[in-house]
């Protein structure tokens, strides 16, 4: 029996200022805070209080700019409804595209993998040497760079 339902929201951080070919450097902590700030703006104390249990963000991949947000089922609507209103992360102009909302991490991960593959296919055509392709694949399929430290207390 699933006792504690979660929703995993996969978002793409699109930033028109940074060219597609370059990785988008972002401090995961700042992303975490800017999401929370927006929820505070839109839904107030109640919104923050209801999502704070089990809230988790991860900035997964710099090359494809994928981030993952975990929230409790029910109040996750507060998160999804405030995502379109995020225009700035720190000083960087961004737009968030919600790609997928899933119930398990496994399915979200499957989706991300698929998404990354599609991205890879489109980029490979632009590259000439096999070596460059290898490097890109490594960069795209890498999820190890995520910073989990900010969420330690929420992981359970």
């Amino acid at each position, binding site marked *: 029996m699933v006792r504690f339902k979660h929703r995993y929201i996969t978002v793409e951080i699109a930033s028109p200022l940074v060219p597609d070919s370059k990785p988008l450097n972002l401090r995961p902590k700042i992303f975490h805070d800017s999401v929370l700030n927006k929820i505070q703006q839109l839904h107030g104390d109640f919104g923050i*209080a209801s999502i704070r*249990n089990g809230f988790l963000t991860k900035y997964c991949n710099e090359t494809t700019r994928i981030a993952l947000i975990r929230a409790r089922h029910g109040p996750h609507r507060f998160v999804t409804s405030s995502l379109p209103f995020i225009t700035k992360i720190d000083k960087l102009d961004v737009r968030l595209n919600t790609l997928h909302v899933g119930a398990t991490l496994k399915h979200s991960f499957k989706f991300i993998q698929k998404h990354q593959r599609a991205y890879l296919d489109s980029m490979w055509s632009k590259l000439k040497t096999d070596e460059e392709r290898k490097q890109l694949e490594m960069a795209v399929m890498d999820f190890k760079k995520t910073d989990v430290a900010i969420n330690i207390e929420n992981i359970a």
Partner: protein
Amino acid sequence: MANRNWGFCDLSINSKFELSKLHIMETLGYNTVAINTLVEEPNDEPKKKKKKGEVKEKKDFIPLPIEIPKEISDSTKLNILQRVTIEFSDSSIAHKINHSDNLKKYDIVAVIPKTLQAFQYACGTMDIDLITFEPESRIPFKVSRKLYRQAVERGIFFEIMYSPAIKDSTCRKNIISTAHNYHAVGKSKNIVVTSAAENNTQVRGVHDIINLGFILGLNSTESLEVIRNNTRRLIIKAEGRRCGKHYMTVTTLNETNNERIE
């Protein structure tokens, strides 16, 4: 005691509350109030070592309950109870509690566990009525389903207070997220809502509390229960804790009553 009309209860009023204003509680629709005495965690360990060689000082770490002047208790129809809230962070508190005479003068015993170990102890073995928390900070441990269920089976209640939420934004967030946590973990079983008010402006009417339940993740029947049925169960359970299991109590009527019966 059980056959008294407990009605709507507010099981925590700060000891700073002016007793002369208690009649306001009556107009707001309450039948029972409990006056809370907070006992903070004593951190006098270095002092103790020095004193060990000297004469043993017999000092109760729980103060005497606040006295209610006779004219106030006579003038209102409110049932006024005494409640004590003890902060603690490990099970060594048990010894102190067992040796406290003043503790027996209180009707309700509540605790604030500060660590996971303390929370486990409170849910599992401690002889108490109510588990509460500090609204100023988040609960520093994870409330597990198992412990919550254990506490519910033992008839221990969980408290949610609302007057700090009126005052302050951080308190408000903490209280709401704690309430939601209780909802997620234990389906909001065995919850009582109290005011923890310091003055009469922070108390709200009975029906407002029932509406407030919406924010705390309670449905309409649960909202009514947290202020009426659950509190009544708590009072009766507390009575059972103090006197042992019993079905009836025998009290002598005073003479004026006797004459009336004849």
